[in-house]
């Protein structure tokens, strides 16, 4: 009975995927008027989370080319195991429309796309390193009184400490997940407070039309006060 239920679900998803593929085809041919003009300027910083086992550099480079064509200026590529980080030089060499994101870069309009590479170690482990930085600062400040249980650190001090250890880039507006499930896979927590997270399916079946649709959906979102 359980298996029957799940086979039915699989069939539903199969049908949904066919419908999505068709829609994506129409969007990429420019046949759906709604998606013809994208307000790409609303997308300041885009993060792409890719399932590590799926990280084929040829697909990644093609995706970057699509993003460059759409006018996306700043991208962060993330995978849990850091495979993309290791292939950083190869990707930058093969895709000549980008430079490496420097931490002190301000998000201005630039001719080339900036690319940042991140992995799981830039998340929780970076917070542990930042905690040590803050602890050292407190000790070195020479304060001899013990903590009073009041607030010693502020969130902005935490943010600064994270920057020192290299774990605090800009907050993405939109995060696209290329993998089997809608799950951010450990993208640095400090940076995704109000990030819209959308699931794109596996990287190997990525479609240009689906990318346009995802960015279009993002540009239509109205965030309430208090987010």
């Amino acid at each position, binding site marked *: 009975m359980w298996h029957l*239920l799940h086979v039915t679900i699989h069939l539903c998803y199969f049908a949904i995927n066919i419908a999505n593929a068709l829609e994506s085809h129409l969007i990429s041919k420019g046949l759906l008027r709604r998606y013809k003009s994208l307000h790409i300027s609303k997308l300041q910083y885009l993060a792409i989370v890719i399932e590590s086992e799926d990280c084929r550099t040829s697909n990644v480079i093609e995706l970057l080319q699509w993003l460059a064509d759409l006018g996306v200026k700043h991208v962060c590529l993330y995978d849990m195991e850091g495979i993309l980080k290791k292939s950083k030089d190869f990707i930058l060499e093969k895709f000549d429309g980008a430079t490496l994101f420097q931490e002190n870069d301000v998000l201005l309009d630039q001719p080339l796309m900036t690319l940042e590479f991140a992995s799981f170690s830039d998340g929780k482990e970076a917070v542990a390193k930042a905690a040590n930085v803050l*602890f050292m600062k407190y000790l070195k400040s020479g304060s001899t009184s*013990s903590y009073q249980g009041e607030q010693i650190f*502020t*969130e902005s001090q935490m943010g600064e400490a994270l920057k020192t250890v290299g774990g605090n880039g800009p907050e993405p507006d939109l995060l696209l997940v290329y993998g089997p499930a809608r799950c951010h896979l450990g993208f640095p927590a*400090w940076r*995704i407070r109000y990030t819209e997270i959308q699931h794109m399916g596996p990287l190997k079946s990525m479609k240009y039309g689906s990318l346009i649709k995802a960015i279009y959906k993002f540009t239509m979102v109205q965030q309430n006060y208090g987010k």
Partner: protein
Amino acid sequence: MERIGERVIQIYGNLVSLLRKCIFCILSVGPIPNHIAFIMDGNRRFTKKCKLMKGAGHKVGFSALMSILKYCYEFGVRYVTVYVFSIENFKRSPEESIVNRYGVRVIFSGNLKLLSEPVRLAAERAMLATDKNSKAVLSICVAYTSTNEIMHAVQESCEEKWDEITILNSSGAGYGLISLGGYEQDEMDHLIKLNDIEKHMYMAASPDPDIIIRTSSETRLSNFLLWQSANCYLYSPSVLWPEIGFRQFLWAILNFQRIHFYLDKQRQQS
């Protein structure tokens, strides 16, 4: 006439409940999520949509919450967490019947010092009253943001480390630790470990969530469980919170079961 009407409603209610239990029986062949979290978004929009009086959406939302809790605990989900966006959501506490029936321990997670005195006292009373319950846990996140949680955990870790060093120093075993002369640079960079931080999180009493459900089609986490959701399935049904029902719950469970093997593998790798 009225009695017949009541009887019919009662029989209908029992049939629905029986059907639900059958569905849960079938579903429990597969993996059951240990922890589900909810972002209860859409109460105000519901009020506007249905042209109700102010606050009515929250009342309906509260009933929706009680139903969802019932489904969760009936199915065998041990930990449930809810994000209380606005204090309006929080004006009532979970019905005693649900808490007692399912042996639920209620925990309020967040920076409770920010709450007003009567609210904080009510929360403390609820936590005390349910302290002995051990079958299931309901975490109510109030005055909570993830970034505040992380910062608070870092601070607590630093305080703990400071106390450790002070004790070692005063017992003469400090080796001059206060001035840190006794530590190598490498050791100084790792005085505070990830485990130290994690045990001071507001949500340390619960395991990482398996599913986070946010209603109203909103696809962001809004500073909720950012640390704990690395391997968590994020589901955003289009219904507003007061409209959430068994259908959405069922769909979340089915999808969770579809990808459970993958998420479990990810969890073990991290």
